[in-house]
């Protein structure tokens, strides 16, 4: 059995280590280094970065870049000072392998001096009877898209979209209420359970409104004094007056509609989505209060 060293993969390993060292040494306040860092980010994020760039260099597919045959690919790299000779294999795979062996500074050189060489665009446009400037401009746009797509390649897709769920809503529902006020905890948890049953939404709304009234007295049986403490506590970024208005508005809604009081003359809520709107509006405010109370150790 004959031992065969694979120097191409050794070069790839060297380029990888060099890239990582460059990444840590480049200065992101220097415009030239910043360009390299963006290119490196595209390389890191896109597992097919070299393959995609190889297609561009070969002028394959529908892109606007000059087509390069086997001979011109070898010339392309030689002109830039890289001693690679096309071995007759499929052009894009060969170029991909070459690019993998080069560190990010070399890749930048290839793009700057080789890929956007105007002479190549002029010759190619003449052969194809095309306008070289238009070809050059569309090549720039295509290259920008390639970089942006590379950077966004590894963006995770939000599963919530596929599962048809609203993560904030689920979080609001899944947490157990755990304040020092057992009655408040019971009201909120029962309300949430009721809300999950479509025929119990009206009762859920009534329960959450009871919880809303209850949270106002969390700090004292004197509702006004307790609410003032609560408002001071929750007004961190949002103005106290804004939150005070929200409390007043919701209190008025609770009194004017058939939520807390069932006398004749109270406006009835007949549409499910109107009930849901009020439910989440008041639950969100209660959630804000409870979270803040918890942060302040009850």
């Amino acid at each position, binding site marked *: *059995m*004959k*031992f*065969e*060293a*694979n*120097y191409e*993969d*050794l*070069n*790839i*390993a*060297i380029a*990888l*280590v*060099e*890239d*990582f*060292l460059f990444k*840590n*040494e480049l200065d992101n306040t220097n415009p030239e280094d910043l360009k390299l860092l963006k290119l490196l980010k595209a390389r*890191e994020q896109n597992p097919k970065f070299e393959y995609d760039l190889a297609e561009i260099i070969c002028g394959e597919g529908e892109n606007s870049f000059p087509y390069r045959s086997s001979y011109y690919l070898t010339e392309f790299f030689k002109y830039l000072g890289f001693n690679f000779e096309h071995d007759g294999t499929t052009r894009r795979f060969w170029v991909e392998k070459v690019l993998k062996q080069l560190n990010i500074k070399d890749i930048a050189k290839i793009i700057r001096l080789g890929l956007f060489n105007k002479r190549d665009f002029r010759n190619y446009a003449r052969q194809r009877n095309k306008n070289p400037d238009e070809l050059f401009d569309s090549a720039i746009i295509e290259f920008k898209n390639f970089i942006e797509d590379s950077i966004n390649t590894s963006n995770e897709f939000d599963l919530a979209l596929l599962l048809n769920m609203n993560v904030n809503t689920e979080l609001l529902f899944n947490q157990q209420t755990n304040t020092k006020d057992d009655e408040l905890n019971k009201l909120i948890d029962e309300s949430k359970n009721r809300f999950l049953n479509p025929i119990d939404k009206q009762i859920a709304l009534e329960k959450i409104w009871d919880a809303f009234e209850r949270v106002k007295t969390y700090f004292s049986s004197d509702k006004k004094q307790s609410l003032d403490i609560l408002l001071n506590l929750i007004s961190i970024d949002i103005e106290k007056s804004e939150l005070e208005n929200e409390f007043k508005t919701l209190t008025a809604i609770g009194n004017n509609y058939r939520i807390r009081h069932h006398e004749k003359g109270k406006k009835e809520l007949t549409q499910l989505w109107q009930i849901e709107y009020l439910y989440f509006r008041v639950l969100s405010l209660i959630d804000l209060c409870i979270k803040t109370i918890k942060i302040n150790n009850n």
Partner: protein
Amino acid sequence: MNPKLKENLQSLKAFKSNLTNENAANLITLIEEIKKELPEQYIIKLSVLKFYDNYTEVETLDDLPF
């Protein structure tokens, strides 16, 4: 910054002139050392590389084919 990795890079480059069956084990050890200094995405790319074909690891004389 990261002198150990820089040193390992120089050692890695040294293999460019001389990668043989005898020192292939040293290269494997060096790559494992380098991996410790790199983030995951770089390790993944390093892990798929194959630096030799038909490398034979001989541990004892009994392993020899005679």
